[in-house]
């Protein structure tokens, strides 16, 4: 096997990019991921890299099969596209964080055992946080802290589950659905946090829009799709997950219709599209799991392209709200074309890559006899088409009447990255076998049949009519949409504040009691004789009690004992002398 771990190559790329001079950083960011991609191609099915760890446990840093190879491939491709997109970036920390994050994703994907998984899992959480913080606004700092708290919760759940697994002697990752024990639920919660399964998806739509322009492109690609990989690997065939997937698909689509922030809208569509994948995991047939894998692959390409285009718009105009944008099609034609390609892809329009992957899951639902799942996923496809292809393209690029100024010219490297993304979305859409040949399970599936194509033409063509009829009400408003993050930003925050106020009050009261006791004791300790009611005789007549202990006040007079001693001595002398 190759000696190069693609994930470690990316981490090394990040470290090198952080320490080299600014002038060289862009070459490292562009070149490092290509080395990782080459390393990925050099890994063959069955490749292993085992490193001994403590207590006789081996760490399987690499254990390749068909499933994780295809995920590794798309993560490597995405790191390369993201690297090119961020070449102009001057921030060393962002370069380090983005490459460590992508490397962590590859580490989780390629590893074979639980211990390695949790290490890279936490590396992803920690490094991705800096892609949010690097935006360096008050909003991003706060969103980053919330992101950190949610991922600490998820990571610790996963860690607890893994402790149970490893301590039971089960060190290798595999399908864990046989027994629904505590470890099963803990690991599921940990993975579900990263997969943004409602109601624990609030972190995604909260944090991703606050990331840096280049950071959000990375963020949109890795965390949720790594979680999808874990779901396929560990939870395939967990039937109720398909209903969870359907809820996600519709939830994201509905919220996206009313959302005003470009990147938050796209974040809702991550929830929606990951819903298709989770549904595939729940259906659990070979075709459905291939559908989930293929859709993750396609999704990374078109979603990153959407984030790149949205980032380019924000970079050029400084505006992130849809209601403030308009008419950019003429001012930014290349971005417009790329955005249209990405929007057609995510909507599942034939000849673009969403069509060749989304339709697999829907067909799998039909063939497995889950008619409601099939219909509801189609409904979610309509929602995706309405909110991205129709709403975003019309309001951002086509409509007239908004005079948006292009303040900053877009760097060439961003154009190149968007061009590569658009080309890949189209190539995979026209030649699906380029992807199908790498899918983990054998399948007989042909996307370009007349009934498939006709179905999407009818479904999406007719869906344009309600949008156009309702166009005057479709423009989003300058408002914020509450989501489940409200639970921990308002009531939970209030609960924390109440509890901490209570604890503070108790602490203050205890402090006051201690202070009074201390003062009293201190006062008395100045002259313990007063406390013991042994005030000096010399002062017995007066009311004045001395503040401080004075030994002289308490000594008996010398005369009386001297007289006694002298008398005894005299008697002794007389007795000895005369008797």
């Amino acid at each position, binding site marked *: 096997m190759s000696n190069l771990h693609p994930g470690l190559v990316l981490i090394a790329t990040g470290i090198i990019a952080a320490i080299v001079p600014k002038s060289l950083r862009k070459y490292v960011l562009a070149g490092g991921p290509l080395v990782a991609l080459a390393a990925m191609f050099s890994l063959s099915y069955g490749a292993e890299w085992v490193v001994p760890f403590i207590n006789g446990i081996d760490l399987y840093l690499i254990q390749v099969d068909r499933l994780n190879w295809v995920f590794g491939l798309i993560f490597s491709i995405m790191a390369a596209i993201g690297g090119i997109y961020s070449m102009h970036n001057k921030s060393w920390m962002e370069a380090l964080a983005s490459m460590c994050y992508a490397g962590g994703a590859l580490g989780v994907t390629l590893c074979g055992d639980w211990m390695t998984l949790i290490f890279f899992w936490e590396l992803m959480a920690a490094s991705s946080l800096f892609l949010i913080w690097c935006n360096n*606004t*008050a*909003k991003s700092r*706060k969103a980053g802290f919330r992101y950190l708290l949610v991922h600490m919760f998820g990571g610790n759940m996963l860690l607890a589950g893994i402790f149970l697994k490893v301590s039971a002697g089960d060190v290798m990752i595999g399908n864990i659905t046989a027994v629904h024990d505590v470890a099963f639920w803990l690991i599921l919660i940990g993975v579900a946090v990263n997969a943004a399964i409602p109601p624990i998806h609030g972190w995604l739509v909260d944090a991703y829009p606050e990331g840096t322009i280049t950071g959000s492109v990375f963020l949109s690609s890795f965390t949720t799709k790594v979680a999808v990989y874990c779901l396929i690997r560990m939870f395939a065939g967990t039937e109720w997950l398909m209903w969870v997937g359907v809820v996600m698909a519709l939830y994201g*689509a*509905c*919220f996206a*219709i*009313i959302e005003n922030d470009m990147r938050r809208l796209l974040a809702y569509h991550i929830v929606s599209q990951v819903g298709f994948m989770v549904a595939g995991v729940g259906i659990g047939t070979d075709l459905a799991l291939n559908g989930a894998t293929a859709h993750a692959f396609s999704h990374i390409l078109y979603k990153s392209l959407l984030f790149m285009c949205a980032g380019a718009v924000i970079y050029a105009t400084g505006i992130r709200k849809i209601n403030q944008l308009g008419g950019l099609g003429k001012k930014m034609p290349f971005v417009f074309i790329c955005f249209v390609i990405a929007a057609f892809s995510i909507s599942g329009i034939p000849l673009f890559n969403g069509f060749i992957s989304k339709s697999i899951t829907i067909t799998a639902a*039909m*063939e497995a*006899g889950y*008619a409601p799942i099939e*219909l509801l996923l*189609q*409904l979610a496809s*309509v*929602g995706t088409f*309405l909110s991205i292809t129709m709403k975003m393209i*019309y309001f951002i690029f*086509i*409509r007239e009447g908004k005079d948006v100024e292009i303040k900053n010219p877009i760097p060439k490297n961003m154009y190149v990255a968007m061009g590569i993304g658009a080309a890949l979305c189209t190539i995979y859409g026209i030649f699906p076998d380029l992807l199908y040949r790498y899918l983990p399970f054998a399948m007989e599936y042909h996307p370009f*049949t*007349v*009934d498939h194509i*006709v*179905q*999407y*033409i*009818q*479904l*999406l*063509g*007719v*869906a*344009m*009519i*309600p*949008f*156009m009829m*309702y*166009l005057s*009400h*479709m423009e989003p*408003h*300058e*408002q*914020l*949409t*509450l*989501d489940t993050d409200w639970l921990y*930003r*308002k009531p939970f925050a209030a609960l924390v504040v109440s509890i901490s106020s209570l604890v503070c009050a108790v602490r203050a009261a205890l402090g006051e009691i201690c202070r009074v006791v201390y003062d009293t004791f201190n006062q008395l300790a100045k002259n313990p004789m007063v406390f013991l009611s042994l005030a000096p005789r010399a002062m017995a007549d007066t009311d004045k009690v001395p503040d401080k202990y004075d030994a002289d006040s308490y000594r008996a007079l010398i005369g009386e004992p001297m007289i006694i001693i002298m008398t005894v001595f005299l008697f002794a002398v007389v007795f000895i002398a005369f008797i």
Partner: protein
Amino acid sequence: MKSLSKKTIYLIIAIVVAASVVAEAMFAHPHGHNWWHTMPGADILMGFIGGWVLILFAKQILAPLLQRDEDYYDGGDGDE
């Protein structure tokens, strides 16, 4: 979309969808399990009704219920 071009767009949609129904009736080999897989044009219903349901649900129910002012979260989210 201007009102004139809107009409043109409706016309294009109508032609494309009608052509698709004809193509479906003549060339498709439906292999579905339910009636909507075999009835030509069934997806038209899904697209139209589904589109309205999603738009109205989002705009008429979700938006009034869940949308707040931008400074809803403590108003201190601006740059410090």
